[in-house]
């Protein structure tokens, strides 16, 4: 089983490589230019963030710095990691900025000396958990939330904690079978990170996996897909969805819960790859995102979660941050990851499907 999985992953990696090498790998691209501007510099940003969510920040930046245009490419986190790694090894051209929610992958890239240093007053103000080696910075603050379809689940049935969710899944009724969704940890770097951090955070993770197995939960890719699924009623509940994606658009029938036992917070990692051609402009871009003005725009785009606007209040003690630092390298360990994914697959019955 293990060897089989390994093979499969290798195949995926190779496929990704081949796929990434020509042009592709990105899911969407967009160019940002200030109105009536003749930009002299082009900044290539590769990010896992949806264009629609990040666009206001990018537009604000090019408005303030009209000589710069931004070529924005949206990537999946695993693809972005492989691309950055191959760029680091000199096999392809690096971007000027890489932003990923797969922070453990970013930490690994920095550890492999794939990033360049940058220092400014603004980066110096970042708390220790959001900066590493002056090469990786956390620019956002996004919560992992539980969402549910308000048409299908009543407010009092909605799980406020992971224990509630467990209880819900343990109920003898069949109405949740195939109706609970979460990230596929293999396809999504962020999904893996969330699940991995969950597994370290509390003993509930074992129970959750067992519960997921019981209700035949669906592991699928990508935030937008999951949110759509819950909205349309395909899924009733989704676990560990990135709150920023949910809140960026008004949804009529979506309930958002910040789990009260603990809520995980993610800070997207930004790095300036080694050998980036526009390193100085990249620094300006980073400073812009960290400046009060940039933070205001990100906050408006829900990328910086504001506690006061919570639908459900989380106490400070229930906040768990994913710290940007070398401990995340554990999540990149081959054997540990292998075991984790094997267990995950067991739960979601993927081997059976194969």
């Amino acid at each position, binding site marked *: 089983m*293990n060897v089989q999985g390994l093979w499969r992953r290798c195949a995926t990696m190779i496929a990704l490589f081949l796929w990434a090498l020509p042009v592709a790998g990105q899911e969407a691209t967009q160019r940002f230019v200030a109105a009536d501007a003749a930009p002299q510099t082009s900044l290539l940003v590769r990010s896992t963030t949806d264009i629609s969510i990040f666009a206001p920040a990018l537009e604000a930046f090019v408005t303030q710095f009209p000589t710069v245009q931004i070529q924005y490419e949206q990537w999946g986190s695993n693809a972005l990691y492989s691309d950055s790694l191959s760029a680091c090894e000199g096999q392809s051209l690096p971007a000027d900025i890489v932003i990923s929610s797969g922070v453990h992958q970013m930490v690994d890239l*920095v*550890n*492999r*000396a794939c990033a360049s240093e940058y220092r400014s007053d603004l980066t110096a103000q970042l708390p*220790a958990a959001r900066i*590493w*080696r*002056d090469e990786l910075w956390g620019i956002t603050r996004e919560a992992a939330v539980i969402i549910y379809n308000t048409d299908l689940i009543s407010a009092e049935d909605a799980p406020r904690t992971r224990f509630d969710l467990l209880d819900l899944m343990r109920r003898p009724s069949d109405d949740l079978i195939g109706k609970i969704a979460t990230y596929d940890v293999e396809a999504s770097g962020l999904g893996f990170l969330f699940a991995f951090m969950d597994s*370290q955070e509390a003993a509930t993770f074992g129970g959750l996996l067992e519960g997921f197995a019981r209700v035949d939960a669906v592991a699928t890719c990508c935030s937008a897909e999951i949110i759509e699924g819950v909205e349309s009623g395909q899924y009733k509940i989704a676990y560990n969805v990135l709150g920023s994606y949910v809140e960026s658009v008004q949804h009529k029938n979506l309930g958002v819960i910040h789990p009260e036992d603990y809520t995980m917070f993610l800070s997207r990692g930004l790095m300036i790859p080694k050998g980036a051609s526009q390193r100085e402009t990249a620094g300006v871009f980073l400073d812009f995102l960290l400046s009060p003005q940039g933070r205001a725009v990100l906050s408006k785009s829900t990328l910086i979660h504001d506690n006061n606007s919570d639908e459900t209040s989380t106490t400070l003690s229930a906040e768990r941050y994913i710290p940007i*630092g*070398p*401990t995340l*390298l*554990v999540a990149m*360990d*081959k*054997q*540990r990851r292998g*075991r984790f994914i094997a267990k995950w697959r067991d739960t979601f019955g993927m081997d059976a499907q194969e």
Partner: protein
Amino acid sequence: MTNAASPAPLQRTLLSRVMGGVLSLLAAGGILVTIAAFAYGKSAARQSFDRILLGAANDIAESINIVDGVPVADIPVSAFGLLSLAAEDRIFYSVRGPQGEVLTGYEGGTIGDFSRNDLTEPAFFDSTLQREHARFVTVARRFSERDFSGAVFVTVGQTLRARNEMALDLAKGAVLVTGLGGIALLVSAFLVIRSAMRPLDRLTRDLSERDPYDLTPMPADGPAEVAVMVEAMNRFMQRLDRQVGAMKNLISDAAHQLRTPVSAIRAQAELAIEDDPENRTQRLEKLVRRTRSLGTLLDQMLSRAMVIHRTENAKPTVVDLRDVALNIFEERDHEVLAPDAEVELQFGDTEVIVMADEISLREAVKNMLANALRHGTSPVTIGVSAHEGTGEIWVRDVGKGPAEDVLETIGERFERSAASKGNSAGLGLSIVRAVAEALGGEVRMEKSDDGFRVTLALPIAQEVQTS
């Protein structure tokens, strides 16, 4: 004199010399301490971070299990938690099987140049990680399971930022403390030295403010070294004072004593020119007598000045008083001075040794003899005798000696009356007295049935007496 008293501007002060010495000593010490502090900081940082590295490697080694005949590491977060104590450093880790194949962790890198089979102790080594200097440790864990036998090697490495920072911090702390200590030492050294130098300063100030003609002794307080210096200086000044005094006396005596005879000579000379030719011979004879007497006076004044100068400057030597008496007798000056007088010599067989300047002594005795010949009654005896630790050299005539009132004032520097009369007995005796004082002796004048005797008594030299 003023030029000599003010210090030459190029000369460094003693304080600045000593402070310079202290400063260079402290600087040398500071450099040594800094080097030592850096070495110490480096080794302390190396030790503590090596322990962290080893702890992480052991954590990982501990997590290895054999699953289906394959070693599988369940990398513990705590291992990386340990490593992230060095928050800014890159991490390398790899778990390798018996053949060196990477089971998990980073490919590449080295696990150190040791023979794998005899790795029982953790092996630390230095290498590079992503072109940065880094420190590594490899530990081995041996398995003897049914389906797996052999060693699994865990290598953990980390770059040196935190180590260097810690080393620098430690060194900085040590250097700061020693630096402050050094400054405190310097300040206290300055204060101590300055207070020790204060007597010298005072001496310098006293000297520079002193009137160049003020030769009075200076207060000899302060530490021994300064007191010695002040004493030497005082001695020097006293001598100078005496010499200046002698010089003054000589000048004033000369002025005083020469005025009368010179004006008398002039008067005689004028008279000789104006007077009748028959009286001229008589006048000229008077003139010659006056001139000779002036010559004698000049001789005595010069000899007195010489004696006073010699008593200050000439070192006393061993002198036998009998030699002095004999020499004077044999010079036979008295035959010129008083051709009619009879002079005898009287001394015993034993030598009479004193410490004296022979020339001064001879001058004194000559004067005594000349006085006796001039004023006393022949025969005149020059004698030497020893008496209760004193050596005596004396001149005796058979006359009655001078009058009582003359005796009282005799031997002062000069006698106005005597000088005005053109004789110089007072001056001659003052020379005797000066010699006696300089040699620690005394002058005695005694009248007896035998006549009038002037004695110069000097202490007998001790070491010669005992030998």
